[in-house]
């Protein structure tokens, strides 16, 4: 069942990728050192999620779930459109594309939410990120 989301456009936000952040991320995931000023490519995703103007907890609530229910990332599609350098701030726009209630073997009744993010540096689109999240529905949540 597809749900109507009353506020599909999420608040815009920003994300600053610092060189220290990139250094630590690279060290923790055993990546090659930064060579050309560009952040590790995973920062397209990190900036999208970390920079949206709505918190993940609020996003879960908007989708009819809660962060305590243990939402999981099911899939993602990332398009890298322009280099993303460190020590630069990026704008993030996001919208909920749709939410669908499904029965899941693992989670029981769960909400499948698809969210699209655009990561910008000024007017330049640097990345487009789509995510599909599975959010266990709140036990007390009535069907809407």
């Amino acid at each position, binding site marked *: 069942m597809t749900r109507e989301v009353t506020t599909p456009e999420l608040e815009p936000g920003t994300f600053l990728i610092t060189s220290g*952040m990139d250094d*630590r*991320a690279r060290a*923790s*995931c*055993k*990546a*090659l050192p930064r*060579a*050309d000023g*560009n952040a*590790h*490519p*995973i920062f397209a*995703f*990190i900036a999208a*999620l*970390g920079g*949206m103007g709505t*918190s*993940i*907890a609020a996003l879960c609530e908007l989708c009819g779930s809660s*962060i*305590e229910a*243990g*939402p*999981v*990332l*099911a*899939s*993602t*599609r*990332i*398009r*890298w459109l322009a*280099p993303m350098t460190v020590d630069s701030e990026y704008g993030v726009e996001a919208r909920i594309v749709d939410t669908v209630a499904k029965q899941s073997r*693992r989670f029981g009744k769960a909400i499948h939410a698809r969210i699209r993010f655009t990561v910008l540096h000024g007017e330049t689109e640097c990345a487009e990120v789509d995510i599909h999240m599975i959010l266990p529905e709140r036990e007390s949540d009535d069907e809407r």
Partner: protein
Amino acid sequence: MSDDSRRTWRLEAVPGLDMHFWAEMLGDPNPIHIDASAARELGFGDATVNPGPTNLAYVLNLIADEFDSGTPSELEARFSGNVLAGDTVEAGFSRLEGREGQVELRRLPLGETVLEATFAMPKTER
């Protein structure tokens, strides 16, 4: 058919403490990344759960190793399992044709696939 000569990328003992750092960057307060008891109560296992994007970073490391530190133009990933603190993981190409292919990230020693991704590199180097 697998090709054992293909490049692989491995991380021994996924660090649990770094999950805090990744969760903080992602603005992700999901307790399964920072509290082993929360992960256990929700059925994930007996250790904290690596954020999915961190697993994706491992796959991007393999691609960067293969393509001279290059960034893909596009990637689609499906997260089919979890990586827990202390796990050893290995990423390898299940298909590689020119500048595109498919990668799998597996938990060792059993080899359970936890992430599958298809990717394409830019037509020209960035």
